[in-house]
């Protein structure tokens, strides 16, 4: 049972335009969400997070939106740059639970075309 789903395996965007990466989850206990970025042959790096008490968190070019009723979150990158080309993983956890186990989606490969 895939509790965190990223239904788009890939996305191609022109440089300067907005990239929107989507993520859906099924577990209503999840209340903390993160996005990680992964370049080939490297470990994932933390990008941005959001708690369920918020519906938006912004950090520079990156904004994460959370729609709890729809169990959906999205990552917006604007303007997109060629260096943003990577695999983006959505992750979720039950922050009120006893562990901090993150459940990851399958990732979306973003290609930003110059």
């Amino acid at each position, binding site marked *: 049972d895939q509790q965190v789903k*990223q239904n788009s395996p890939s996305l191609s965007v022109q440089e300067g335009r907005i990239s929107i990466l989507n993520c859906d989850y099924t577990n209503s206990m999840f*209340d*903390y969400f*993160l996005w*990680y970025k992964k370049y080939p*042959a*490297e*470990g*994932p*790096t*933390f990008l941005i*997070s959001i*708690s369920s008490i918020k519906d938006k968190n912004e950090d520079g070019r990156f904004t994460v939106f959370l729609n709890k009723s729809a169990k959906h979150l999205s990552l917006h990158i604007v303007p997109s740059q060629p260096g943003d080309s990577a695999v983006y*993983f959505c*992750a979720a*956890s*039950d*922050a*009120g*639970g*006893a*562990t*901090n*186990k*993150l*459940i*990851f*989606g*399958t*990732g979306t490969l973003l290609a930003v075309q110059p």
Partner: protein
Amino acid sequence: GAGVSQSPSNKVTEKGKDVELRCDPISGHTALYWYRQSLGQGLEFLIYFQGNSAPDKSGLPSDRFSAERTGGSVSTLTIQRTQQEDSAVYLCASSPGQGGGNTIYFGEGSWLTVV
């Protein structure tokens, strides 16, 4: 060190052999995780250690997989009698403490190829 350190970075082993993968978490981090990513797949949770609590082993795919964390710091993931489907990158991560809301930080991974 400054980040999570994993060794070896690459390992090629014959089917049926045992392998050990090592992880040094960020200094002071009490929580340690192992994930793996098979080709074309997402990040699969394997095991989680937090302080002196019993580890969460719910993600280990079979009894050929085990992990230890000695002294609350270094961890070793052991795969016995390796199979070709064990080929993947094994990622270790650590975070500052217990409870939710902590960001986890990954190492570069150990790339395992079983031939």
